[in-house]
């Protein structure tokens, strides 16, 4: 097992492995996304209370779940790069940040659009949505910090520290926002409370969550490959790949 972990450190090997995984993962992701959407949009019956607007759940909840998981992936990669000094973990962290930010943005946008028909206003200071907004700020903080360093090595380390601090703080932020929400509006309906969702609606949701996880992995691997080429553009193996691409 240890040699595998060690080999993860060599860029060309990582580049090749990522390419191999992507070759079969991208089609699976697309199939899962399309089938999940079609199933959720067309074949499930509307919610008796919210009518058809509930169908947005099939993109809002998966995006929110994967966005939060994405932050933990970024923080763990940061921890690995700081503790074991593996340069490749920096690349994973740098690749995960924009994907996580985009998914958080999707979750916020679909949450707001879903709020309009159910509550009549675009923006609702609901506990989950507020925490999601703070998560977006955390992501943008990491991306902004990375862009402000000239030396990319130091940028990776600094972002690792920030994402670790973020990881420690996320449960605190989520709990305090939940608690804050209950303080100011004790009696209001819980918008995102999981009303007992019956199985016909649950299965497409699970499929969509899986599809979004696969999507996150695809984007992460693609960003990683691009980042690897960028950082190692002076080395031989990149020149060889550029050659094949040029002649191919």
């Amino acid at each position, binding site marked *: 097992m240890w040699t595998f972990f060690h080999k993860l450190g060599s860029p060309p090997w990582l580049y090749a492995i990522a390419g191999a995984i992507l070759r079969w993962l991208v089609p699976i992701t697309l199939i899962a996304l399309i089938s999940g959407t079609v199933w959720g949009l067309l074949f499930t019956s509307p919610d008796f209370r919210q009518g058809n607007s509930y169908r947005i759940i099939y993109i809002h909840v998966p995006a929110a779940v994967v966005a939060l998981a994405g932050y933990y992936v970024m923080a763990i990669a940061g921890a690995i790069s700081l503790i074991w000094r593996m340069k490749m973990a920096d690349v994973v962290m740098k690749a995960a940040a924009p994907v996580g930010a985009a998914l958080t943005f999707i979750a916020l946008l679909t949450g707001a659009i879903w709020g309009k028909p159910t509550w009549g206003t675009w923006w609702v200071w609901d506990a989950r949505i507020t925490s999601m907004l703070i998560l977006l700020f*955390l992501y943008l*903080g990491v991306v*902004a910090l990375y862009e402000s360093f000239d030396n990319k090595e130091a940028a990776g*380390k600094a972002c690792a*520290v920030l994402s670790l601090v973020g990881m420690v703080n996320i449960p605190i932020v989520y709990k305090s926002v939940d608690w804050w929400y209950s303080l100011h509006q004790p009696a209001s309906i819980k918008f995102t409370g999981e009303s007992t969702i019956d199985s016909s609606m649950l299965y497409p949701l699970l499929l969509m969550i899986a599809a979004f996880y696969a999507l996150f992995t695809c984007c992460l691997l693609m960003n990683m490959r691009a980042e690897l080429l960028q950082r190692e553009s002076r080395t031989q193996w990149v020149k060889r790949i550029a050659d094949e691409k040029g002649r191919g």
Partner: protein
Amino acid sequence: MSPPHTGQFFARVLCRQLLLVMRRPIEMGNPLLFFAMVIVLFPLGLGPAPDKLANFAPGLLWITALLSNLLTSDAVFRSDFDDGSLEQLMLAPQPLFLSSLSYILAHWLTTGFLLALVSPVFALMLNLPISALGTLILSLLLGTAVLSLLGGIGAALTVGLKRGGMLISLLILPFYMPVLIFGAAAVQAAVTGTPPGPYLAILGAMLSLAIALAPLAIATGLRISLDA
């Protein structure tokens, strides 16, 4: 003469920081002046009606304290970084964890601590009931300490950057939010008469967590910034 052990060095760095601030005591007034001016903005914006102001007073006081702390936390390491003293601190054999803690303690003593003492004056201007003043001071004392520690992390990460000032707020504000929630809730509870104890306890818990973990991040951040 053997090098001082950690406690002596902690005290020496603390005294050095306080001495440097005492050389220009006027600068200690800047955050307080900022606090005063922003408090004055709210009646201008929200209207002078006493009851409406009193309703918002806890939140406004806490948000203003938070912003003034954010403004000053950028300069915690900046001056020592510019003239090279921070490099010498890095090479000292004593643990950097405690040296950065003494920097933050000095920063808190000269900003947050004074802010907490001065805040009742402005609370009365916002018609905060007298009964809530004690809780306000206590919550600000605990809260600004946590804010200084978190701001120190942002300062350590951006000290090497030329234009780090604006960036620090983007990095650190999300971590300030829980402190604001419980700080304002404590004062709100005192205003409505319910015991503020539990909220202050949570602030205390946050403070102990920050004291234990923040200097770790600050020390690593400083090593990274100085290495670039």
